[in-house]
Structure formats: structure tokens, C-alpha cells
């Protein structure tokens, strides 16, 4: 981060913003006691986000403050050890839960009381994580009765915040383990037990009965049984079960498990877009979304191209400078395509309409009979009857600008299923993930390659959280995992290829694109599916993640 104070304008510029530059600009201005116009945040092209990076941290105030006070530019470079100690931690919850279920497997009731560790003090995410946990524990199933209660506890640890599939990675483990345990005790098939309890397609929009952040949790659309059927077939679940029955090499024990989950997408309600078209036929899209490496520029350019009708290659997407983009809510919670895309679509369609209406008058033709190209607007089938862009844009000073603000205060709910096939080595505690598959319905897919990239990357983080990553502290509160030698990120050898089935069977009615965000579904139920598979392999109920080799060996010996 670099902050520079300009004494002539009494303003400060901060380079290195991420995730939510407009929100952070407001916060910084407030803390300085300044007007927002005196603060400018500029996003730079460095690194991913995943929930932790980009929140307003103490240094986001202190560095600009130092720059203002000293009158000199101040740079802040955090090293990895500092980062591992101080960046928001997440995931520490302890749940005491109970499920009532009929002998035939029908769910009757679910109760859960849990502790959420928020660390030494409450940071910018407040109660977001436990709030998501308690409101989304019910998942894809019908529950006649549900009671959830949490206490968020301050402890002598690094403060907590959101991290990919926040609150849900945790409760997916809880719920899906409960379901498997219930199935096992009743002697029922774990897949069939899920099937008979899935919310039916006729029930949508489905009010779960809980509140998140003051809003009722209402699943917008879904066909849960259909995805289950498609996934079982596509991934050959019968084949996986047969594989499980075959003897493994040496002392290895085989197990398979699944986790069905509902994700949430599109928080923070609104997004801004401005589209500018110049006489040369160049299009500039300004979005309040930001880049964390997910390809937002590509997706928004695609949406613009589709709805404006100009070639993708002519479109440039710009973001991240709070001076050129007046407002925005950033990139988190799988919102950029959903809300950012909807805003771009709105602006693109409005711009197209303006151009065609103006050209229609000139050409004395109906807008529906007109074609827009980078040269201008012409009559379909009669390219010589054309109005050049320069003519159409003259009244606008050569550049036509259209803004859109898309607002939707309801969340979208993509849903999916994770499948895991593992071999566990009781002699070393190693877990080998032999196959992993993800089925995910996101409403509509704008860019399949980018979407699959999110699933694959999300899966890797799920593996990390299930098998490797843990912020340990010693008895006196000293962090033990403050380097990459101790905080273990998965390498290419720990992350197998993930098989993917992406469907579009339940578009969202909440935005004109039908899109539900997709960034977190690769992570959401990895812990659940692998914990179920390991429990299956060892005949012992896994109730805790991560599954370190020591924990596995203890379970295997039990």
C-alpha cells in the first residue's frame, strides 16, 4: 500500500486498495473526519482476495494518516509472517447439534448451538460469519422445525473475518455429517435419505424461515432432486460404491462420501456501471466491481458485447479507481457477475436503445430493423443506408455515456453437491483423495472456463481447509503457524483434478441475466464430503477438521 498526501488539494490518494475500494474510501474519510471527495483509493493488480484481503485493516487508516501527518509518501509492505499473524482468520466454530428423524429417514427437527471464535476483537465483518452459519445450516432439506443459536466469543487470537464460503464451509460439515450419522444409525442409504428430504422444485421461492443480515433467507430458485440425479449419473455413483467395496492396496481403507449444500451469492444489494461509447466505436465499461483475479473484465465485456451488440474485442473494462468510478460495492460473496453483470447489462441495453432510437429517426426505419457496428448504425440488409457513429454521437460531444445502478436486496442461492472417494492410511494418517467431483447449478453461466476455474480454485482451498491448513496457538497464545513452513497450503500434489458438472436448470428470477454467483461453490462442502468419506472408510465418525495425520491415526485406532 502506498499513500500520498496532496497539500494543495488537501486530499490523500491510496494505491493498493482491493475488494471494496468505495466502502473503504467512505470508512477512511469518516475516520479522518474528511469529505469523501478528499479521499481517492486506487486498486492495483496484485493478488487474489478470498474474503480476507481488502477489508479495512488498521493499516488502511494508519498509513494514509502517516502520509498526511508527515507530508511524505508512505509505503507499507507486509511480509508473510506478519500476514499470517494479522490477516483475518476464520473457520473456528464448535457446534452442539441434534437431529430428530423418523425411522424411514424423514427429517423432523434440527437444533444447533454453537460457539464462534471471533478472535481478540470484532473487525469489519462483525457477526457475518456466524450469522451466515446459523441462517444457512438448514441447507437443501425440508425441516419442520429448526432452532439455531450462537455465541460469538472474543479470545486471545487473531481477529476473524470471512473466508471463502464463510460460515457455510463450517455448517455444511455439521449438517452433512449429521445426515450421514442418522443414515448409518437407521441402516439407510445416505443418498436416499438426502433425496427424500430435499426441498421440491414446486416449493420455490422457498422461505427457509431464517434471517440473514435482517433479510429473510428465501431460496430464489432450484431443482435439488434433478441435480442429484444428474450428478449421480454423471459421476457414476454406483461405480464409486463398487470401487469402495474392492480391496485397496496394502493397509489402505476406502470410503466414499457426499455433501449437499446451498450457497449464497450477491450480497451488498447494488452495483454501478457506466458505459461510454466513442466515435471510433470503442466501448469503455466502468464497473464498481473489482478484480481479484477472477476474470471480471472478461465476463463484463461479454455481457456488454451481448447486450450492446458490438464486438467483444472493442470493449475495455475499467475498475478500481474511486475517482473515475463514483460508486461500487466491490468483489466478494460471489457478486461480481451477478450484480456487476446486471448493471452492465442494464447500461448496455439502455445505450443500445438510445443509439438505435436516434438512428431510427435519421434512417426512417424501425429500431428492430437496424444493425449496430463499430462504424455506425445501418439498416439490416442495406448496409449503405448508414448513420455513422460520429453523427449519432455529435449531440453528446463525441462520447455517449449511460449509467446503470442495479439494485436487488435479495440474495441468490446457487446449490451443489460434492463427491469424495478417499483412501485412508491408518499407518501414517494420510488421506489420499482419489476422486473428487462437484455438481453445481448457478442459474446461468456467462463464461464456462472462468466458472470452472472458480470451482477448481475453490476446491483447492477446500482441500487446504480439510487436510492441511490450521492456525495453531500454543497455551500462552503464541501463534505457531506464522510461516508457510507451518501454515500448509496445498501444492499441486495435494489437489487432484476435480470433475465438474455445471448446470443451468434453475436460473435466478432476481436479475435479468438469471445468474447466481459461482465463486464459492468449489469450497463449500469439501470438508463435509471428505469427512463423510473418511468416516465411511474408518467406521468412525469424524467430527472435526482439519483431518491432520495425527487426528486420522487417532480415529483409526479408536
Amino acid at each position, binding site marked *: 500500500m502506498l499513500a500520498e498526501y496532496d497539500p494543495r488539494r488537501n486530499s490523500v490518494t491510496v494505491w493498493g486498495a482491493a475488494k471494496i475500494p468505495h466502502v473503504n474510501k467512505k470508512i477512511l474519510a469518516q475516520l479522518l473526519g474528511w469529505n469523501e471527495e478528499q479521499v481517492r483509493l486506487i486498486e492495483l493488480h496484485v*493478488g*487474489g482476495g478470498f474474503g480476507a484481503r481488502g477489508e479495512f485493516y488498521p493499516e488502511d487508516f494508519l498509513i494514509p494518516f502517516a502520509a498526511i501527518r508527515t507530508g511524505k509518501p508512505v509505503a507499507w509492505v507486509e511480509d508473510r509472517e506478519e500476514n499470517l499473524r494479522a490477516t483475518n482468520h476464520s473457520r473456528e466454530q464448535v457446534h452442539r447439534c441434534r437431529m430428530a428423524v423418523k425411522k424411514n429417514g424423514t427429517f423432523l427437527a434440527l437444533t444447533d448451538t454453537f460457539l464462534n471464535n471471533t478472535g481478540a476483537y470484532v473487525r469489519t465483518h462483525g457477526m457475518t460469519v456466524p450469522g451466515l452459519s446459523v441462517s444457512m445450516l438448514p441447507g437443501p432439506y425440508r425441516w419442520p422445525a429448526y432452532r439455531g443459536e450462537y455465541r460469538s466469543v472474543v479470545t486471545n487470537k487473531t481477529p476473524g473475518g470471512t473466508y471463502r464460503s464463510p460460515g457455510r464451509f463450517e455448517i455444511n460439515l455439521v449438517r452433512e455429517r449429521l445426515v450421514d450419522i442418522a443414515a448409518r444409525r437407521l441402516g439407510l442409504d445416505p443418498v436416499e435419505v438426502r433425496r427424500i428430504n430435499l426441498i421440491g422444485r414446486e416449493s420455490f421461492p422457498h422461505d427457509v424461515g431464517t434471517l440473514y443480515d435482517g433479510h429473510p433467507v428465501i431460496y430464489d430458485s432450484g431443482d435439488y432432486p434433478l441435480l442429484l440425479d444428474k450428478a449421480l449419473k454423471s459421476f457414476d455413483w454406483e461405480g464409486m460404491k463398487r470401487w469402495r467395496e474392492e480391496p485397496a492396496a496394502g493397509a489402505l481403507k476406502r470410503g466414499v462420501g457426499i455433501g449437499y449444500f446451498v450457497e449464497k451469492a450477491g450480497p451488498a444489494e447494488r452495483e454501478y456501471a457506466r458505459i461510454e461509447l466513442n466515435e471510433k466505436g470503442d466501448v469503455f465499461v466502468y464497473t464498481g466491481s473489482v478484480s481479484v483475479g477472477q476474470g471480471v473484465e472478461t465476463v463484463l465485456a461479454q455481457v456488454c458485447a451481448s447486450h450492446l451488440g458490438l464486438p467483444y474485442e472493442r470493449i475495455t473494462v475499467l475498475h478500481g479507481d474511486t475517482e473515475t468510478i463514483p460508486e461500487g460495492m466491490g468483489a466478494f460473496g460471489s457478486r461480481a457477475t451477478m450484480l456487476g453483470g446486471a448493471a452492465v447489462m442494464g447500461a448496455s441495453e439502455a445505450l443500445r436503445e438510445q443509439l438505435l432510437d436516434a438512428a431510427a429517426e435519421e434512417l426512417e426505419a424501425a429500431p428492430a430493423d437496424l444493425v449496430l457496428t463499430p462504424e455506425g448504425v445501418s439498416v439490416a440488409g442495406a448496409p449503405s443506408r448508414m448513420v455513422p457513429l460520429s453523427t449519432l454521437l455529435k449531440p453528446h460531444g463525441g462520447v455517449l455515456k449511460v449509467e446503470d445502478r442495479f439494485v436487488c436486496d435479495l440474495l441468490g442461492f446457487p446449490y451443489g453437491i460434492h463427491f469424495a472417494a478417499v483412501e485412508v492410511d491408518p499407518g501414517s494418517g494420510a488421506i489420499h483423495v482419489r476422486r473428487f467431483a462437484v455438481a453445481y447449478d448457478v442459474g446461468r453461466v456467462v463464461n464456462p472456463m472462468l466458472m470452472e476455474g472458480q470451482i477448481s480454485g475453490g476446491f*483447492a482451498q477446500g482441500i487446504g481447509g480439510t487436510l492441511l491448513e490450521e492456525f495453531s496457538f500454543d497455551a500462552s497464545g503464541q501463534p505457531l503457524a506464522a510461516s508457510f513452513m507451518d501454515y500448509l497450503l496445498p501444492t*499441486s500434489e495435494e489437489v487432484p483434478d476435480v470433475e465438474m458438472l455445471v448446470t443451468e436448470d434453475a436460473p435466478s428470477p432476481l436479475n435479468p441475466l438469471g445468474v447466481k454467483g459461482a465463486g464459492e461453490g468449489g469450497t463449500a462442502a469439501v470438508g463435509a464430503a471428505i469427512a463423510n468419506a473418511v468416516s465411511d472408510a474408518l467406521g468412525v465418525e469424524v467430527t472435526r477438521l482439519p483431518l491432520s495425520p495425527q487426528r486420522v491415526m487417532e480415529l483409526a485406532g479408536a
Partner: protein
Amino acid sequence: MRKVAIEINGNLVEAEVEPRLLLADFIRDQAGLTGTHLGCEHGVCGACTVQLDGRPTRSCLMFTVQANGHRIATVEGMAPSAHELHTLQQAFHENHALQCGFCTPGILMTMEAFLRDEPNPTPAAIRSALAGNLCRCTGYQNIVKAVGVAAERMRKEAGSVS
């Protein structure tokens, strides 16, 4: 202070440096080549990987003075021209083998050397060769694929030049 003369991407860079200046910092701050990234400074993540005399090396674990008289290659030297990417880079681009891009230069430096040693690797061999570079974004799947695609293209190119 010590004088050093280090060839980086074919250009000789001369400077006077403290012995404790890490090679990675020299490359970034003094040679101005910021494609080489610092992810950990303890030799685990691989984001700082450059080639020292053709071999992938963690530049955060070398002092600049140790590179005196040696050849360094960084990612900036990979593309044959301003208009054309290296076959590996092109394959990464087409196969979505990078997202935020922070780990990518280190991976390219590692894989370019790997393909010189093993022009016809199996996916398992690629995956194994990749294990010294951490990526948080992609899940590695597309990287393994892109390296395979590049390897095939490079074999074809080599085959057609005889």
C-alpha cells in the same frame, strides 16, 4: 558494498550493493523487473523463482552478490517479442492457467526449464514438477493442462525445424 555485474535477460546490469541484498529485491528494485514476486521470503512459495544459469532457483534465497558473473532469466525475457508470447505463456492464456497471476512468473520459469529437461512429460510428471510453486487461485488443474498443451506444441515446433 560490493560491485556486481549480472546478466539479466541478456542485458548486463551493473550496480553496487550491500551483501545482504536479496537477489529478488535486486531484480525488482534495481533492475526494475517486477514480474518476479515475493510471496514468502522463506523459500516455500516459489513466486520468486528465476533461472540462474538456466536452472530454476528461488531468488529470495540468494544474495545478489552471489549472482555476480552469472546469467539470470526472468519472466520478462520469455516472450520472443512485444507482439508474441512464448508458447508456454500462450498456452497459459488460452487454458485459463492463471487467475490473479501472482504465482505465474515463478511457475513459467520453473516449467520452461522443466520442458527443456523433459519435452514429453506425462501429466503426473508435470504435476510433480509443479509442486514447488504454490498457487492459491487455480487449483493447478489448468496449469497442468496448459503445460501439456505447450509441450505438445513445442515438440511439433522442434520437429518441424530440422
